[in-house]
């Protein structure tokens, strides 16, 4: 058992930002999500039970993300006036040629069903092990493995122009229907 050292958290900002970007599909929303995640973590002393900082951050990021989704669904519909058009950071990566690709990739991930999105982000974007990711997302490891596999397939299919994407994706989502609603069975 140890108390989380707030100073150690700053080293994870970039990784958490990438995870938030892939979850939200937008850099501006990702910034808000990261700030809200850190505000939650720092709101009181945290005692970790032998867990890695990054695992703990993913858990809080997931909870904050799901809360923000629920809050967003309750917001009043105000039409185009509420469009969130904020100037984006012109230098999101160290390699400018990568910027477009990153935006495209993360936007595609953000279109996945919520459970698949979280699984892919925890493992492939944040770099958690399957075991850590399963615990952070509160699902069985087998469930997590299935979700990551399906999420990767769906992203690859959506990024391939000549693939039979829609029907395949619809079938995948239909097959995953029980998984997404129960949150605990593969």
């Amino acid at each position, binding site marked *: 058992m140890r108390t989380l050292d707030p100073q150690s958290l700053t080293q994870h900002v970039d990784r958490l930002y990438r995870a938030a970007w892939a979850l939200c599909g937008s850099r501006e929303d990702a910034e808000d999500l990261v*700030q809200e995640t850190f505000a939650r973590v720092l709101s009181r002393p945290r005692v970790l039970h032998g867990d890695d900082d990054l695992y703990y951050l993913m858990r809080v990021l997931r909870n904050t993300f799901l809360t923000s989704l629920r809050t967003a669904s*309750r917001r009043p519909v105000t039409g185009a006036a509420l469009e969130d*058009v904020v100037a984006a950071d012109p230098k999101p990566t160290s390699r400018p040629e990568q910027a477009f*690709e990153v935006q495209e990739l993360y936007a595609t991930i953000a279109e996945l069903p919520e459970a698949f999105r979280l699984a892919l982000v925890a493992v492939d974007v944040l770099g958690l092990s399957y075991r850590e990711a399963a615990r952070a997302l509160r699902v069985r490891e087998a469930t997590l493995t299935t979700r990551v596999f399906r999420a990767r397939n769906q992203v690859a299919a959506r990024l391939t122009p000549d693939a039979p994407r829609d029907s395949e994706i619809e079938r995948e989502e239909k097959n995953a229907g029980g998984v997404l609603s129960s949150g605990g069975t593969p």
Partner: protein
Amino acid sequence: MSERLPKTESELIERLHAIDARAPEELHRKIEAMVAERTPARRSPGAIRWQPVAAVALAAAAVVAVLVISLVGGGGSSSQRLTVRQALALTRLPATTAAPTENPHNGTQLETAVGGVAFPYWEHLGWRSTGTRSDQISGRTVTTVFYVNGRGQRIGYAIVAGTPAPAVDGGVVSWRGGTPYRLLKRDGSHVVVWQRNGHLCVVSGHGVSSATLLSLASWQERHTLTS
């Protein structure tokens, strides 16, 4: 579609692992400021064994802070205190002057302003301004504009004159467009508190959800950025 985009699962994994996108400097600065604010002063080695006890004490102190929820005048004396409850009470009082009109030069604002900070024009969002009042609390002028929607719900939007704005504790912080909004609940009403150009703003309405208040409160900031 980029030629570089991955077509297979293995390419996708490889590409995702290779992304080194860095968070904006502004975000780094904000997080570092939050961490600095929350990092306790250096303890003596003997104090380390008391960390769990200290954690419990700090958590208890945080709970007390939430219950106290007070605004303390920045730089002012302790006798000059403006409480959230006082500001909230103003948003429930009747208007004393007529409704302000829309700013003819800026369709997102009303003509009434405090220290250059204008009240928002929300009619196209379904909230019509109905009146204004001005009060003095703890040596500060608080101007409140009232709005109603089609269902008869009423919102009071108060701007506290004078900078620096009083500090606010308690509640939950929610970020929108880089601005922290503090969500509180007092006397059965949701309250959203934040700063605009260094001025404290308070918006509340009986029976109005925090999500609606937050959405309205953050709308103008975002719109101002893009207009």
